[in-house]
């Protein structure tokens, strides 16, 4: 072995081979591995090697502690499970015993050997190679200290839906400042659009409005609605955030929210935001009745002042301005966008979801057939404050449907659109079935592939809907058409009947079920701009567009970027209780950081050896976190340790070898390669 750093006799390594019951010992000859380490790796500094049933047990940990004390170990290798499970455990053992925790290493011989190989001899040989590689690596480890950064107590919450509101309230209630940024003109998010919530049938507004009001009035919550985060700089503890406030054309400080301007505005347009396209609003409008803040917003795309009414652009009716009773006038036609710069220590992203565009499935006829609606349209229709005053009617606005088909999984669980299950549509469809039945007495058919009701009291609600007499047809709807198949079918039905063509898979029959109204349970999709938003905040999206958690199971709130957390549907479809829980959980994580005052970061970081740096700046553009900058006066590049996330790309790219990647240095990796290939017989060089 031609390693740069010879142990020179002073390093004393202990190797521990775990049986993990029979998990490892059933396939790998653990005694043989321990003997190999003790005998063959003696010249590499291994002074003792043991095998033990469960290294992670208290007894196993004590074994190491004892050896450190009695055998004066300086480095420790544990051959057991994946470091993702127990690296922290064994680092802790070292730390308690006075050995720098970063002088320990794990060799994964369970996940990467015992569980994936059946041939015992081959598995044992591979385990030995891995142990050998890990011993070489640990010899090259440097003692490290965790990096400490101070945490600014102010928190940014992005998204004012239920998850964001919850997070903001939790942090504010604990006594810390929160900046809550919402893209729309009011807090509330999608939940504000719903009528009732499953499975309890609470009125969505009744349970949401108090939270919106509390967030709006909280002295610690600084609200920026009709605003977007434009730029994020810095790192955990001290982010600098630029918020862009879009012009509302209404002075927030003067306006009293009396609503005369809205009343007097003569321009009526379809509200395809809050009313999901089935209601109208004015050119100056309230986002909705309970909006927080209680301020109207003016839409320059439809206001006659901007699009040009009588007298051309700049003319227009100006009725809002004329009738505004405040002094000075609240209407500000010349308002422009503003930028606000803020300092925050942590960021919670609760940016939510978009509804699948049902027009993408032409055979379902949405947009073509008048009486095909989306779930969101029906939510608005059911809502007493909605465009129909809570009446469920056909597109004609008059007649109630006598037969309604509800189609599940629209745009979900389908390789052509989204492969994921949208998680809430089964329950939403059941709820809508119940509401339609209750309001109209119509025959209701639910067309489903599987009914998924895995929440508290969810299946009980399904039972209740069965009691209501709602029909269930198991089959993914093939098409919805207004064309009768033949004169006989036409004769049976009235003009305008819709036929839901489906295979009733439980009966094994193709059926055409005539209905008056179809409701498409369109699924949840990632926000269309999620990739760009992810880039702004330095977090990653999956190819499907949902944000990626640090760990899907064990750390679903954190992201790969320290100090940036996600809550609610931004990481995938969730129902209201889950979104609320995540909002609280994200707040708890942030409060934890704030209370600590400073944060210890993993010291896996890159750093520049200035003496070797030639100032070529190749590394400068490579860093995804903008951690590398060029210091002009010294003509070298410099890495900000707090910004660096330790990916090592710059280490690999530096032509001078001037960048050191702590924890994954060239020396460590080279040594590990040598150790791993210790057993490989190389052909003698050609004579």
């Amino acid at each position, binding site marked *: 072995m031609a390693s740069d750093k010879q142990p020179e006799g002073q390093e004393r390594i202990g190797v521990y081979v775990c049986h993990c019951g029979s998990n490892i010992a059933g396939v790998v000859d653990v005694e043989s591995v321990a003997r190999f380490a003790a005998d063959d790796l003696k010249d590499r500094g291994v002074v003792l090697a043991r095998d033990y049933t469960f290294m992670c047990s208290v007894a196993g940990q004590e074994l190491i502690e004892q050896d450190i004390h009695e055998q004066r170990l300086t480095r420790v290798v544990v051959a057991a499970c994946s470091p993702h499970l127990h690296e922290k455990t064994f680092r802790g053992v070292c730390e308690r015993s006075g050995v720098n925790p970063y002088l320990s290493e794990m060799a994964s011989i369970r*996940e990467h050997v015992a569980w*994936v190989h*059946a041939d015992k001899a081959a598995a044992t040989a591979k385990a030995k190679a891995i142990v050998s590689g890990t011993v070489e690596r640990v010899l090259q480890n440097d003692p490290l200290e965790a990096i400490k950064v101070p945490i600014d107590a102010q928190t940014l919450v992005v998204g004012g839906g239920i998850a964001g509101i919850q997070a903001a309230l939790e942090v504010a209630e604990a006594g810390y400042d929160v900046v809550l940024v919402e893209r729309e003109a009011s807090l509330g998010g999608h939940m504000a659009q719903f009528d009732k919530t499953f499975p309890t049938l609470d009125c969505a507004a009744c349970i949401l409005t108090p939270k919106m009001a509390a967030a709006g009035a909280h002295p610690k919550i600084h609200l920026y609605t009709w605003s977007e985060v434009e730029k994020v700089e810095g790192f955990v503890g001290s982010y600098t955030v630029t918020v862009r406030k879009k012009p509302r054309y209404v002075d927030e400080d003067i306006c009293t929210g009396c609503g005369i301007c809205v009343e007097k505005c003569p321009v009526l347009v379809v509200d395809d935001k809050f009313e999901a396209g089935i209601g109208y609003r004015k050119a100056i409008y309230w986002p909705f009745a309970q909006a927080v803040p209680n301020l109207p917003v003016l839409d320059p795309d439809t206001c006659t002042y901007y699009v040009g009414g009588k007298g051309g652009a700049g003319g227009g009716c100006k009725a809002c301005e004329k009738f505004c009773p405040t002094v000075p006038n609240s209407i500000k036609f010349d308002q422009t966008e503003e930028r606000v710069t803020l300092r925050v220590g942590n960021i919670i992203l609760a940016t939510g979801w978009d509804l699948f565009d049902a027009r993408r499935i032409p055979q379902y006829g949405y947009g073509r057939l008048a009486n095909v609606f989306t779930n969101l349209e029906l939510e608005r229709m059911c809502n007493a404050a909605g465009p129909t005053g809570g009446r469920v009617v056909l597109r004609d606005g008059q007649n109630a449907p006598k037969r309604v088909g509800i189609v599940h999984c629209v745009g979900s669980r389908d390789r052509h659109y989204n492969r994921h299950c949208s998680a809430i549509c089964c329950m939403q469809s059941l709820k809508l079935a119940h509401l339609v039945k209750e309001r109209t007495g119509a025959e209701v058919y639910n067309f489903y592939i599987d009914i998924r009701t895995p929440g508290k009291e969810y299946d009980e609600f399904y039972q209740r809907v069965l009691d209501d007499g709602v029909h269930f047809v198991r089959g993914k709807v093939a098409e919805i058409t207004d064309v009768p198949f033949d004169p006989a079918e036409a004769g049976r039905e009235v003009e305008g009947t819709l036929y839901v063509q489906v295979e009733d898979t439980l009966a094994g029959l193709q059926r055409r079920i005539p209905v008056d109204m179809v409701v498409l349970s369109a699924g949840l999709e990632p926000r269309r701009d999620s990739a760009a938003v992810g880039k702004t905040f330095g977090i990653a999206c999956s*190819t499907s567009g949902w944000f990626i958690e640090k760990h899907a199971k064990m750390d679903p709130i954190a992201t790969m970027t320290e100090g940036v957390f996600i809550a609610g549907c931004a990481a995938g479809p969730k129902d209201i209780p889950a979104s609320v829980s995540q909002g609280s959980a994200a707040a708890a994580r942030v409060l934890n950081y704030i209370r600590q005052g400073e944060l210890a970061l993993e010291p896996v970081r890159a750093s520049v050896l200035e003496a070797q740096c030639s100032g070529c700046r190749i590394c400068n553009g490579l860093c995804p976190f903008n951690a590398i900058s060029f210091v002009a006066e010294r003509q070298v590049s410099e890495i900000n340790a707090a910004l660096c996330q330790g990916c090592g790309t710059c280490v690999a790219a530096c032509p001078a070898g001037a960048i050191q*990647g702590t*924890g994954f240095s060239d020396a460590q990796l080279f040594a*590990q390669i040598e150790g791993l290939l210790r057993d490989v017989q190389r052909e003698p060089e050609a004579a």
Partner: protein
Amino acid sequence: MSTPSTPTPFEPVIIGFTCNWCSYRAADLAGTARIKYPPNVRLIRVMCSGRIDPTLVLKALSEGADGVLIAGCHPGECHYLEQNYKALRRHRLLQKTLAQFGIEPARVRLAWASAAEGAKFAGEIAAMVDQVKALGPLNWPARPVPEGRAHADEVAA
């Protein structure tokens, strides 16, 4: 079962570089799911496939490995945003370099596996082992690893 006359079949040794977030976890998942694959690959964990510089690959080959597998997150899913694209570009360039060294480019394989793709990762390993078996032993005489970093300025971007 082999008769005395047949020589031991060639079992290649392959070094696999895996990233901390996707492919190493995919390997963990393959284990948890007890998906079997050939024991010829020995894994090294790095934080990101963007860390793999050509020197590491050449080092492995010169130390006796018959092949090198580089596995990262899927393009677009990198936990460091887009560093795996850098791995992709370096791999392309490295293959040209290998050809100049007289080494079959197929000995260095690039694969993507998300943390959820244990089965895919196992499949990639099996395919890699077959690929290298077909090529036979590398027998690259031990030689010092190049002092400077090969083409670092070209591979940087």
